[in-house]
């Protein structure tokens, strides 16, 4: 009786559950599939709405050729490819450096706030934490113009360093949030033992705590890299020929390409491919970073 009710009762819910799961997975994945497949289409395939390679349409390297990244053009000189690689390089350097810097100073600050009691004038730990977290509220538009002017004076306009500093600022509150949560879960006894053994505060931090907190740091780093990689607003306003990043290049092509979807698709695909690789391989860390502090 129990078994019968189980199968009779659970069968429809199972179907609905999997149906919804598959539907949503389709909604999530189809745009990505569409972008990658369109980069192999020709004009006819696009206008007639062909969807399945080899069945509907014959894959063609057209989109990738326009980027200079197809097999037959990869060894030839191509100005588009050079442009693309330069933007790609800018994006890689800006996002990795900014994330590393943010994790460096953010971890230290988070550790201090998690372990010691500070008093900077009227500011105590709670206020200092709030001071850092409140930066999340600040919309980029508020900083954009002052930075345009300041960077001009500092000769940092259209440089990678300028971009790195801004991106560090952007992800710093998130890093502090994640790392404070991480340090709060590490028992104090370990450091106390180290301090008794004659370690300095910094020695205990570097030798005992950091190795344990490494997963949290990796999570904070990866989340920061993703956010910096995708950043568009500051990059669009503060960079031009030298330090322009990939999102700005994608955006600038959107208007001009008209219906040559294959090249836009190839460009978009190349811009999101690194993130998809990161997402598939390091999903665990991203989830860890996103959920830090939310569940207590």
């Amino acid at each position, binding site marked *: 009786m129990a078994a019968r009710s189980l199968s009779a009762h659970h069968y429809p819910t199972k179907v609905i559950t999997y149906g919804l799961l598959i539907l949503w997975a389709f909604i*999530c994945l189809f745009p990505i599939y*569409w972008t990658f497949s369109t980069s192999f289409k020709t004009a006819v395939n696009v206008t007639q709405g062909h969807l399945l390679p080899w069945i509907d349409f014959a894959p063609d390297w057209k989109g990738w050729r326009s980027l200079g990244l197809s097999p037959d053009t990869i060894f030839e000189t191509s100005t588009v490819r050079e442009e693309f690689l330069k933007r790609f390089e800018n994006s890689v350097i800006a996002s990795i450096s900014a994330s590393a810097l943010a994790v460096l100073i953010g971890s230290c600050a988070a550790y201090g706030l998690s372990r010691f009691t500070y*008093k900077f004038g009227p500011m105590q730990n709670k206020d200092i934490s709030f001071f850092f977290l409140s930066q999340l509220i600040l*919309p980029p538009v508020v900083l954009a113009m*002052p930075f345009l002017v300041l960077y001009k004076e500092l000769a940092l306009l259209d440089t990678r360093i300028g971009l790195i500093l801004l991106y560090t600022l952007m992800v*710093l509150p998130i890093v502090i949030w994640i790392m404070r949560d991480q340090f709060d879960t590490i028992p104090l006894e370990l450091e106390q033992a180290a301090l008794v053994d004659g370690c300095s505060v910094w020695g205990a931090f570097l030798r005992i705590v950091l190795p344990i907190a490494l997963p949290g740091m990796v999570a904070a780093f990866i989340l920061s890299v993703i956010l910096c990689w995708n950043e568009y607003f500051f990059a669009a306003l503060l960079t031009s020929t030298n330090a322009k990043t990939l*999102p700005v290049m994608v955006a600038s092509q959107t208007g001009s390409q008209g219906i040559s979807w294959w090249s836009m698709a190839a460009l978009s695909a190349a811009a999101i491919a690194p993130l998809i690789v990161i997402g598939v391989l390091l999903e665990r860390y991203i*989830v860890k970073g996103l959920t830090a502090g939310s569940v207590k």
Partner: protein
Amino acid sequence: MAETADTPTAPMPSRAALSALSQAEAVTAGVAPERVEDGKRIITLATVGFAVVVLIQLAFDLGIISWGFENWRPIAYAYVLWGIALGFGLVRMRGAAGHRSLFVLPAVLFTVAMVIFPTFFGLYIAFTDWNLSAFEGRRFSGLKNLYDLFNDAYYWNALGNMVFYVAAVLVQYALAFGLALLLNADIRARKFFRVAFLLPFMLSPVAVSWMIGKSLMEYRFGPVSRLMREFGWDNPAFFTSPWIAKFSIALMDAWVWIPFIMIMLLAGLQALPKELSEAAKVDGANKWQSFWQITFPIMLPVSVTAVVLRIIFQLKLADIVINVTSGGPGGATDTVSSFIFREYRDRSNVGYGTMLAEFYLVIIIIFVTLLLNFVSRWMRKIN
């Protein structure tokens, strides 16, 4: 900043113990009076040096003296040096307590330099009439920008749109909760679904703008438009009539951000003790009842965190609007950020744009403060 003092009044006993321990160490290390003098001297010297460099450059910039640096970059280096000297001085002065303050010092100095100073500098710009494409350059214009702001129908329209976009967060939350429940159910291939559901969050909004806004929803050849024609909507123009355009933008925004809420809620669900739902089942509650009476109330704190964070992020919404509709048709999809972005980039109207941004910041601060107050009071009433 220089008043770094360690007060062992931490609420947690273990934390106080550690603090006391390191303080004992500080006492044994013994900060000799000459070290305190030393530290003070270092900090004073560095501060004076920094001030002199700034004054020299300021005088040069204003044309009072004829020599100085080519640009202000050396001032940035001087600030870094001053920060390092401050750190040295603190360690010298306070021993172990100084060491402890070194943990937060870099982040504090960095944030102050990058946020506080530019925001106040922005306030100054906001009261000037400054158009980059105009010949005259910057001049003080008093409250004129503020008057213009109050008469700018497009700006208020953009603010009104923000209400719509913020309200859309609640719909995203409902959908995300459903998805989190699905993922938390007893299913196979959970890892695959979780990765698939997370991917949209990771893609750059600019790429999403093209992938979905400009190609999938393209009027003639986009697959979504084709599908809509199949369903009998003859004229599937997603971005030409105001409300449909608004919903289309909200749709794309939801596609990107639902995973964010979903992951937070899923973590909350996974932390729930299994016995709870078992107990509810024994009591004869059906799924619907047990969700509303047990799961949902327990999940409330996580939900509130997720929704509040999401609203804060939503207030910055810009990339998708800039790249898909540029605020059109007729400002129907404009967000405040995208409107100001165009003010900067297309009209080079720096002074006015900054006034709009600073005004928006004030509104945001008031709104978020009220929101947080309301939420904390509400949570206390419920518990």
